[in-house]
């Protein structure tokens, strides 16, 4: 990922991974209760950031191509067009585009959710565990 950038290794994704491994390992083992819970939340947040650093650039290209196939430049335009009703006769195509974007978001945020939902997903970096941020509002 450092191609075309002045930075040395580790890459940003590798730095985030190192921080996550420290929190999951040494730090989580030395605390309990609420702090242990927050260690899990923080490790999950870093795993998400790590996956986004790795997958994000290709996802951005694919997202732009999908939106372009409907004639839109970004999600703002697509959202406004759905709301106005102008896409009501193309809802199958529109839904397929929206669904593909949501699946890409889940590949970064919580790949395990796709598996539980029966949506196929290839193995990705990091690991989406049971997302302990699922606490009540």
């Amino acid at each position, binding site marked *: 990922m450092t191609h075309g950038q002045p930075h040395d290794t580790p890459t940003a994704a590798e730095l985030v991974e190192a921080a996550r491994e420290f929190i999951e390992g040494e730090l989580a083992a030395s605390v309990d209760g609420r702090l242990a819970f927050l260690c899990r939340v923080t490790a999950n947040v870093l795993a998400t950031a790590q996956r986004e650093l790795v997958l994000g650039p290709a996802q951005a290209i694919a997202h732009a191509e999908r939106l372009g196939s409907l004639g839109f430049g970004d999600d703002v335009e697509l959202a406004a067009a759905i709301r106005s009703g102008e896409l009501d006769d193309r809802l199958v195509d529109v839904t397929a585009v929206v669904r593909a974007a949501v699946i890409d978001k889940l590949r970064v*945020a919580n790949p395990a959710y796709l598996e539980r939902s029966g949506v196929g997903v290839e193995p990705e970096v990091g690991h989406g565990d049971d997302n302990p941020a699922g606490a009540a509002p």
Partner: protein
Amino acid sequence: MAHDSSDDTRPLADALCRALDLAEVADVRQLSGGASRQTFTFTATGDDLPARRLVLQRERPGGTERAVGVAAQAAILRVAARAGAPVPALVDHGDDDGIGGPWLVTEHVEGETIARRILRDEEYRDARSVLTVQCAAALAAIHRIDCTSIELPESDDILLDWRDLMDGYGHPHPAFELAFRWLADRRPPSVRRGLVHGDFRLGNLIVDGSGLAAVLDWELAHVGDPIEDLGWLCVNAWRFGGSEPVAGVGRYDELLDAYETASGVAVDPAHLRWWETFGTLRWGLICITQSEAHRQGRHRSVELAAIGRRVCENELDLLELVT
């Protein structure tokens, strides 16, 4: 996280003593602390009463825009108890009294609130088998309550209100737009208006070995279509990984049959599905609201930050419901 009555809880214990006219308050423990509210338990001793365990709910002023105040919550607890709904007995409430914010004190109810344990632990096996029917009966009791004397929020157009909230954050969500259109095209006839609990789900229910022991957390109560509560109970997030749609443990037909038995109201499954879909959208928008509390600096928290990336879970659930 538990604190005993060490120096940091002494001022709170003293304030509770004065506010509730108690001889002694001891063993103050914080159960939870959120952006809008904190919960504590403590042991109260009166002059002629044996020691008993009570629960303090303390609100942060201006914590949650849509929440009803402690006075309305106290009024609901009183009428709900009379209507036969399982609720913790109200002890008292007030605006501050040195406690540090609007407060409400109830009796402590033994049992479990953590969904994961209720859904998986062996000791709740019997509870799980009766929970759907008990929830339906409790909701029927809640929905029978005459709440006309209590000041509660009531929306003229629930879809418009939540769309306005979403627009206020300025992040486009095409999946939510698809859901709003689906919902707008299929609005159920609003034949019945009444008290809606507003957050009836695992996490806000105390469950013991024999099932539902108490309904907590009334701050999202409002006037509306009571079937909203049934739909909310079916939202995927509130199944906590359980295999069945109703709170992770029950079937749709079980819920509707038990609700009809208890209330006399027959509910069309499509009506329930509308509210489940609305509830899924609402939870997605609440996730955005919570992450914005972090982003806008009102309550910096990695937990709230993480919730922002759960929005896409709701989007996938919504696409499953509307397509």
